[in-house]
């Protein structure tokens, strides 16, 4: 089935958000039984590894010449496999990022229990992503990207004010210095892995998730061991007992987290990390019903009915939606077909073209043209200034044709 790439992207990112919102609710319930973030983080990862192995094995079962995973979740998935040498550095960095993020997240849950407050905090990560993308993806942020990031950030800050009217500085510090840097490390490296070619094929989300959880679990064990050694605690041993005691809830979290991440990684493979994060920030909306249910059953303090606080929360949500919309609606894509002069090495020209900001694909082709480019730009003016002007300066190019993409469908 082929659907508009944009719809697929939103479907994946929103599904990931809804699952994440429900999971936060489960985490809050779980925190009642396991009050130590190290123990909770480790217990989650043990089950996470187990769940990821089981599901990846199930999705590896062949059916009509393809794997179940390929038919249902990710067409690029073939079967469970060991990580490749070229993936190691990204798995190490991504795993460390996930471990840091998880421990920080559980520490935050223990300080603030209300999911509608916890998750908006972490949406500020979008600012970090825009900055890092501009460095790693040779892509200078445009005015609209900066504006949208700021709108989303302020929306998230307003949305994160508790309905009891408080804001915790300790929690803010954990968000800014632990959770968000960890999330950036994870996000950037997951995207690197998703865009990596393994045996000339696109890398699949299922194996990426599996190995990320395994690496994250190893890093969490390492961090816990260091913590236990320095502070004389016994978190590592305690985590084994807790896993057995709370198996039911942890099992639920393991399944939910697996699918939330698989959808998120697939979305990352389609859109830029900052745009994916922007859409995923809709989680803030989905956490409100979760908070209401938790308050109703007495897992968190009753929510205030103060109209000022409710208004602030609504403004926060509106700002996030505005930020997301302006992000999503301002991306222009185009093909550029190029004919080259003879006497110039093609690979050298390809490299020059690849170095131009906004170029996402360079293909040397046989046929009417010599090279085909796929580009991505926020505005046509930027496309002219940053891409066409640079093309004109490459001596080996005889002529080129710009073909703007009006609409696009992708096989899923």
């Amino acid at each position: 089935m082929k659907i508009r790439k944009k719809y697929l992207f939103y479907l994946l990112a929103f599904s990931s958000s809804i699952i994440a919102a429900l999971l936060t609710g489960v985490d809050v319930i779980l925190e009642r039984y396991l009050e130590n973030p190290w123990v909770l983080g480790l217990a989650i990862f043990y089950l996470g590894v187990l769940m990821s192995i089981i599901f990846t094995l199930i999705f590896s079962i062949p059916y009509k010449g393809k794997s179940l995973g390929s038919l249902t979740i990710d067409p690029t998935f073939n079967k469970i496999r060991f990580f490749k040498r070229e993936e190691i550095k990204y798995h190490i960095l991504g795993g460390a990022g996930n471990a840091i993020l998880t421990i920080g997240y559980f520490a935050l849950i223990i300080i603030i229990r209300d999911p509608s407050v916890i998750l908006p905090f972490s949406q500020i990560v979008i600012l970090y992503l825009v900055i890092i993308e501009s460095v790693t993806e040779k892509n200078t942020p445009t005015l609209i990207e900066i504006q949208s990031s700021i709108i989303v950030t302020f929306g998230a800050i307003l949305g994160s004010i508790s309905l009891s009217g408080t804001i915790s500085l300790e929690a803010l510090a954990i968000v800014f210095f632990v959770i968000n840097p960890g999330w950036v490390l994870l996000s950037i490296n997951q995207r690197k892995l998703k865009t990596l070619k393994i045996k000339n094929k696109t890398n699949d989300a299922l194996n990426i998730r599996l190995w990320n959880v395994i690496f994250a679990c190893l890093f969490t064990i390492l961090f816990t061991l260091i913590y236990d050694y320095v502070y004389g605690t016994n978190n590592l041993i305690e985590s084994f007992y807790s896993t057995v005691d709370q198996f039911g809830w942890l099992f639920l979290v393991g399944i939910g987290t697996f699918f939330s991440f698989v959808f998120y990684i697939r979305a990352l493979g389609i859109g830029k990390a900052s745009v994916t994060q922007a859409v995923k920030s809709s989680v803030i909306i989905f956490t409100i019903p979760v908070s209401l249910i938790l308050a109703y059953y007495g897992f968190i303090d009753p929510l205030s009915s103060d109209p000022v606080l409710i208004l602030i929360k609504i403004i926060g949500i509106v700002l996030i939606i505005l930020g997301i919309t302006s992000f999503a609606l301002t991306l222009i894509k185009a093909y550029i077909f190029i004919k080259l002069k003879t006497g110039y090495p093609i690979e050298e020209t390809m490299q020059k073209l690849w170095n131009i900001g906004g170029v996402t694909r360079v293909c040397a082709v046989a046929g009417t043209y010599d090279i085909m480019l796929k580009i991505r730009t926020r505005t046509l003016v930027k496309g002219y200034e940053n891409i066409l002007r640079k093309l004109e300066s490459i001596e080996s190019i005889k002529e080129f044709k710009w073909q703007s993409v009006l609409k696009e469908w992708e096989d899923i």
Partner: protein
Amino acid sequence: MITAYILINMQPGKSDKIIEEMRKIENIQKISIVTGEYDIVVRVGIKTLDKLLKVTDKIQMIKGVTKTTTQVIEKEIAL
């Protein structure tokens, strides 16, 4: 794995029907409606050149397609 782009010209006013038909063809990874010299750009991923011929054939059989130009990818750099 062979990857190729097929550049398509069509009769005006037929884009909806053509896209609908094209979305049923296997091995087509991406369909883009574009402005300029061509009307549609299709990205195809196939195992053999023989299968590429079959995909091209299916596209040419769609009513309203007036011309196809196939560009086989020899080398690719992508994000």
